[in-house]
């Protein structure tokens, strides 16, 4: 029998509906694959019993003709989503042993529609990172082999400290790695500055960050509230469209979540993009950009032109200020959002001689170095005397960035094409150990989108000279995810689907 984990989500759905495959079989195949892939460290918790029980229910629903849109489809869930009774720690030590007695809105939408939960996926601690190396549960390895390395070498590295293996990107590294390694059909992820799009680009998968407000944040462990947004990572544009339709929707429990109907995103796959105006922002042609990224971008332009789109040069003049402004706004919000982890009510508690000592001991032991750094930056930029110089200015920049995009869209631009990342995936332990900014630069093309609250999708568009996947990013108008799916599916089609690695692990 063929390996059913190699099916796309859409193919699996159709097979289940055609009853040529059962949800239990499909789920078991994924559980088996997960068991063999533990070295990648993509999952921090596997939930086989729950998965098989959900799959059995799905089979019954399919049999009775009451199947939901995601009936029987096994998915992974980023550890940031609250899952009732199941490990939810945002991969931080400070949430030690935390099992919520509530379910996030986004995941409850997935279960409502019949999806099956395989387990919780690794991530950067509190979603702070671009390589999945800040997780309390250790780094995740990408299923992509490093250049000039074979499976035997990689298996040895996997058993050791993983140095030299490739990062899957972050913060949704577990999601991207699991999807690329066929350890689930799709995964929930979240994106505050690029945490869906960058790992998707690094692993040859597709990831969309929808417009801010499209998905409810209720039950997602908060990093930076004004930037955080849920989204899927999957192997095809269509699969992302199918997942997003279920994940999105109004939720009265999140004041920032909009009350607007969720379109049938899948219907926009394959829709003609003839006459669509695609903007190419000159400011994204950054200094020192590798030639292969330049070429990728040019290829993308050629694909879209060939499909009848009109290519226009645009300017987004405040792009350069986005990254520094982001690294003020996001840590500021994080420093406040993470204040609740104080050892008083749940999670880790390290005793001390008095309440202050307990706070200090708990937070010192519970947060990793990157989280501590961002809390300190955040507290600093909000403190009396620095607030105006940092936080207020960053918010002004944010407004200017938003206006840049508004002007482009006012000129009739339908979507904007940029590279997703400035390079292909790098090695575990390779970046950021001496200068954190080196790591932060990974987000240079993606943070603008969060700052402006816009939708952005990363889609594989080619390979690097070393044979590693590279992605392009499309940025859309607010709440126009449909255009992104249409245009992204053209790139996917034109570039040819990336051949994901065969298991070596």
């Amino acid at each position, binding site marked *: 029998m063929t390996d059913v984990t190699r099916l796309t989500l859409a193919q699996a759905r159709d097979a289940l509906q055609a009853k040529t495959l059962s949800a239990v079989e499909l789920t078991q195949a994924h559980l088996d694959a997960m068991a063999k892939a533990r070295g990648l460290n993509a999952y921090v918790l596997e939930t086989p019993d729950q998965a098989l029980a959900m799959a059995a229910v799905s089979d019954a629903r399919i049999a009775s003709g009451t199947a939901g849109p995601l009936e029987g489809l096994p998915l992974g869930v980023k550890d940031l*989503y*609250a899952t009732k009774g199941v490990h*939810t720690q*945002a991969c931080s030590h400070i*949430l030690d042993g*935390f099992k*919520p007695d*509530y379910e*996030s809105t986004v995941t409850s939408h997935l279960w409502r529609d019949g999806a099956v939960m395989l387990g919780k996926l690794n991530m950067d601690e509190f979603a702070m990172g671009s390589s999945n190396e800040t997780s309390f549960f250790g780094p995740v390895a990408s299923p992509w082999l490093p250049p000039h390395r074979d499976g035997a070498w990689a298996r040895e590295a996997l058993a050791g400290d993983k140095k030299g293996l490739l990062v899957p990107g972050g913060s949704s590294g577990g999601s991207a790695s699991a999807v690329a390694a066929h350890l689930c059909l799709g995964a929930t992820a979240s994106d505050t500055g690029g945490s869906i799009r960058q790992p998707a680009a690094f692993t040859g998968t597709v990831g969309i960050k929808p417009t801010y407000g499209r998905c409810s*944040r*209720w*039950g*997602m*462990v*908060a990093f*930076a*509230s*004004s930037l955080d947004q849920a989204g899927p990572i999957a192997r095809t544009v269509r699969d992302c469209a199918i997942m997003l339709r279920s994940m999105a929707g109004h939720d*009265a*429990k*999140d*004041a*920032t979540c909009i009350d607007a109907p969720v379109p049938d995103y899948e219907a926009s796959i394959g829709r003609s993009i003839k006459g669509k105006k695609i903007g190419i922002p000159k400011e994204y042609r950054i200094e020192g950009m590798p030639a292969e990224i330049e070429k990728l971008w040019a290829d993308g332009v050629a694909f879209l032109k060939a499909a009848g789109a009109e290519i226009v040069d645009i300017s987004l003049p405040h792009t350069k200020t986005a990254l520094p402004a982001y690294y003020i706004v996001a840590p*500021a*919000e994080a*420093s*406040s959002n*993470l*204040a*609740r982890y*104080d050892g*008083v*009510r*749940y999670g880790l508690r390290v005793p001390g001689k008095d*309440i202050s000592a307990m*706070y200090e001991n708990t937070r010192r032991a519970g947060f990793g170095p990157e989280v501590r750094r961002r809390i300190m930056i955040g*507290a600093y930029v*909000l*403190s*009396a005397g620095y*607030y105006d110089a940092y*936080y207020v200015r960053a918010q002004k920049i944010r407004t200017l960035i938003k206006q840049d995009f508004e002007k482009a869209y006012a000129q009739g631009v339908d979507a904007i094409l940029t590279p997703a990342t400035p390079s292909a995936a790098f090695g575990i332990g390779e970046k950021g150990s001496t200068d954190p900014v080196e790591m932060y630069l990974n987000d240079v093309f993606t943070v603008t989108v969060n700052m402006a609250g816009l939708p952005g999708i990363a889609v594989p568009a080619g390979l690097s000279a070393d044979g590693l996947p590279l992605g392009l990013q499309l940025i859309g108008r607010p709440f126009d995810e449909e255009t992104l799916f249409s245009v992204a599916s053209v790139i996917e089609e034109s570039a040819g689907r990336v051949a994901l690695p065969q298991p070596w692990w």
Partner: protein
Amino acid sequence: MNAPANASKLIKGATGDWEIVVGMEIHAQVSSHSKLFSGASTEFGGEPNSHVSLVDAAMPGMLPVINEECVKQAVRTGIGLKAQINHRSTFDRKNYFYPDLPQGYQISQYKSPIVGEGEVIVDVTASEQIVVGIERLHLEQDAGKSLHDQSPTESFVDLNRSGVALMEIVSKPDIRSAEEARAYVTKLRTILRYLGTCDGNMEQGSLRADVNVSVRRPGEPLGTRCEIKNVNSIRFIGQAVDVEARRQIGILEDGGKIDQETRLFDPARGETRSMRSKEEAHDYRYFPDPDLLPLEFDETFVEELARHLPELPDAKKARFMRDYGIASYDAGVLVMERASADFYEAVAKGRDAKAAANWVINELFGRLNKEGLDIASSPVGADQLGAIVDLISEGVISGKIAKDLFEIVWTEGGDPRALVETRGMKQVTDTGAIEAAVDAIIAANPDKVAQAQAKPTMLGWFVGQVMKETGGKANPQSVNELLKRKLGI
């Protein structure tokens, strides 16, 4: 705030006069069924941690959603304070660590409050009225409660209050004495109770005051202030102002200077104590709460709320003065509580309104105060008191007998009209009986008769004697007339 100092309010120090300057921040718990940002109950007195939602406990991933009823209550209060209502306001986070603050921040309105400037008209005494300016009113979350007396080694936390909506009402520094401070809070509480936006219950902590006190030489700029935190009774507010002003004057007269600090009032010892200095003040790192959108509404929303507001104390007082012809201070006393005002109106309806006011204020309120009762639990109802007033005006009983009758109704209840009959309390209007008493007294006191004829004011003595003789039941008018005729004056 720089109006000429009122000499009668000044404090005499060893080196001359001092003026007290007070401004207040009142924390008033919003009357609402659920909390400001969660659906948990606000009921007082539940088992610890029985009214706590996931949001109140700051569980991971929880988000605040504004309770529209709390917004309406704040707007109603703003209208009652004759204040500017801001159609757009924002919520900020005030960050600090404390075990009873689960989020690690309080959601408050720092930059743009829902209500701006307004004013409160305060009757300080029967003859003195002041206007206290309102700086702003904003909505914010209450914290939980730390319990330190449950275990020798641990502190416990009760989150029932965590997230309950508070209105912080900030006054301008327009208050000049302890008496004014008390009168201001009393009036503010009256307004809130009329509006139904806060129950004003200080024992249960529904109304707490942070009192800012400074002193200065009359006419000089404002002195350095100290903030006395969380004073929880009107009496203590007055005491705290006095004690703190005297402390500051003492320091200044000794050549010292006042340090800006936060202090606590200890009613048992009658002193204020330093809690933390300005240097120890927290850096709250305020910033706009990204989980909440700006709070916006239009004028229609405000008008709709205004249309359904009850008659407020100032308007009611003006109406009482106009329609019932009663004095300003009396009207002020009557409108202090809505229930008292309603009671008065029931008594006054179709009767001598001034007499009704006297009976309600002097007899009824006096007695209620003495017994520590409120108007709702008065043993004498409005119809009963009305009947007593009727019996007087009809000449059936005298004022003196009426007080006895009131006493009977208070302790035993019953229909005053029937009681007068059954207990023989009716006035004697039978001139024959009165005349007999008059004659007897004239006959027995020839010397007084001579005196009265020389000095007619002596008549009072005779009236008294006759009343005594008739057990107070003689109609005073008949007695007067008879005596004048018989004495020839």
